[in-house]
């Protein structure tokens, strides 16, 4: 009985540290990937002689991105980089939800889910109001 409490506390702390480590890795990978994609896009812009303020602003078309990437067109890398940038914090929240669920912390997992629902609502509302 007297030994159980410290072991539980230690386990909880190590679980929390593991969740934080996971999330840190998600954030680092997402940041490096997004900045890398943006940097390639900027380099291709430079090679193509585009000036950011002169060139026509390419619209976001998810279906075109794979083709733009294969053809090494700057807009493909820039849009993918921007989408990765915006997705990184959301992946962090998703990783937190999984981590907290695994650690048995349902209330924290619920908060993370609430954030993801708000983001989904943002997408929905932006789509409706943009039309």
């Amino acid at each position: 009985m007297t030994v159980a409490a410290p072991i539980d506390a230690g386990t909880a702390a190590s679980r929390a540290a593991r969740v934080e480590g996971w999330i840190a890795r998600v954030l680092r990978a997402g940041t490096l990937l997004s900045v890398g994609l943006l940097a390639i896009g900027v380099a291709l812009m430079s090679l193509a002689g585009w000036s950011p303020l002169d060139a026509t602003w390419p619209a976001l078309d998810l279906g075109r991105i794979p083709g733009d990437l294969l053809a090494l067109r700057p807009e493909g890398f820039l849009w993918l980089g921007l989408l990765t940038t915006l997705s990184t914090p959301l992946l962090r929240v998703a990783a937190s939800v999984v981590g907290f669920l695994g650690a048995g912390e349902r209330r924290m997992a619920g908060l993370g889910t609430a954030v993801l629902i708000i983001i989904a609502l943002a997408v929905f509302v932006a789509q409706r109001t943009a039309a």
Partner: protein
Amino acid sequence: MTVLLLLAGGGFGAGIFGSLLGLGGGILIVPLLTFGFGLPFREAVGVSLVCVIVTSSAAAGVYLERHLANLRLGMLLEVFTASGALVGGLVAFLLPDRVLAGLFAILLAYTGATMLRRGVTAAREGAGPIEPGEDPAGPADTPGAFRAALAGPGYRPARLGVGIGGSVFAGLVSALLGVGGGIVKVPLMYLVMGVPLKVATATSNLMIGVTAAASAIVYLMRGGIDPLVAGPTAVGVFAGAMVGSRVAQRIDLRVLRILFVAVLALTAIQMTLRALG
């Protein structure tokens, strides 16, 4: 090519300044893009939000690894910052540029005053950031299991209701003005909720990414983010923030702070003039 380099260079400068002074780059990027490159205010805000997410994600990973950020508190408050940011992102498209510029001028003046006060206090008291473990607000007002789950070493967040309300406001400010909202969140957690300053700074940084993403999605889907401007600026800001974090120990921040306050004051005047038309 020249404009591209200037954008990247401007982002680099904003990243260094922001990193050295503990601010997100947003407070500098919006004026840089509006006054330096003639972008409409709302477009500048969209680009700034992207840059803010990049720097926040980079820094938040480090804070988590060092166990400085309070992930649980951040997850609670970001439900409300994200809600505020969603509303702010929608409202931003209804407000005229002049109103947004006026609001930004107020934010600049507030930030400048805060930095000056911080400088004076630090000089007078020799005060540094409060270490985790100190509890400036004393014990929390009402104990509870949930509040206990939000506690960190030596502190327990107090006044959750005020924190939640303030978080909604921080989200609104972030979405309307393209800043991370740390200027609201850090004092809120530190002064009102009794969270140690270092933890408040780290937790605010963690929350900034989600807060900015909630409104950036609205900007993106409504055509408010120019990828050709956002790309070079974000890469520059990221590089600047990396350099800034490495040279911070070798730079006299008092001189830098005075210079920064002067820049903020000039920019606030320009923003006010723009707001007045």
